[in-house]
């Protein structure tokens, strides 16, 4: 595992995710995450966001993404200082119900 990832405290991530879920309310169904390395070998935190169907395209998708990133980037500021890059993937509720355990992009 990349050294930077060993510095990450899961409790801090979970607290930030809880805050994001509260702030975004019913727009977000679930926020999952994994720590790992991206295709270049750089350390990353991979967020998997499940949204309500109505928020999965157009300006609504854009606004949810901005708000989510603002909260998570702010609360987990330390991660970027360590070189851990945040990656986001999104599904809406219907897509997630269909794809369930199949790999995210």
């Amino acid at each position, binding site marked *: 595992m990349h050294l930077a990832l060993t510095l990450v405290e899961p409790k801090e991530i979970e607290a930030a995710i809880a805050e994001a879920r509260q702030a975004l309310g019913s727009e977000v169904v679930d926020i999952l995450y994994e720590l790992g390395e*991206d*295709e270049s070998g750089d350390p990353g935190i991979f967020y998997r966001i499940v*949204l309500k169907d109505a928020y*999965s*395209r*157009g300006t609504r*998708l*854009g606004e949810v*993404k901005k708000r989510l990133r603002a909260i998570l980037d702010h609360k987990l500021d330390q991660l*970027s200082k360590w070189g851990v890059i945040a*990656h*986001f*993937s*999104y*599904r*809406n509720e219907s*897509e997630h119900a269909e*794809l369930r355990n*199949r*790999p*995210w*992009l």
Partner: protein
Amino acid sequence: MRYARQLLELARVLAALDAPETRQASLRRSASTAYYALLHLLISEAVSNWSSYEHRPALARVFEHGKIRTACVNARAEAVRVTKSQTGSSEALVQEHLRVVAESFLRVHSRRELADYDMRPEWRDTDAWDAIDDVSNAFESWEAIRHDPAAQAFLVSLFGTRRRAE
């Protein structure tokens, strides 16, 4: 820039083409087209500085996907550094927009690789619309800063210029 905007509009058409059904071809092509919209935006902005109009197409062919990606990795790192150390300054604001452009490129570059070359993941509407949203944001941010010296320096970095030895 007009061609780049047409590509972004085409990406939207492709994403919506089969709704409510999903077809892998349309969704993957949509994400790939969104990537090319941003790629061509950046390239056209860079070559527009070349005064000899007839030579711009040849100059545009010099650009390489990998070198642009590397330039965006560097630009993002610099943007993060400046926005954190000079919060609220006009330079930080420009760098924030550059960060949006660079990060959007990195995300859609990665998505395009999956869309065009990896048949394993199953694409859904949200995947395509996410890529379109990233590129739309990049277009907006670029419009806000395109004449700024930092933005122009970023365009030069897309060539993959080396630093001179100190």
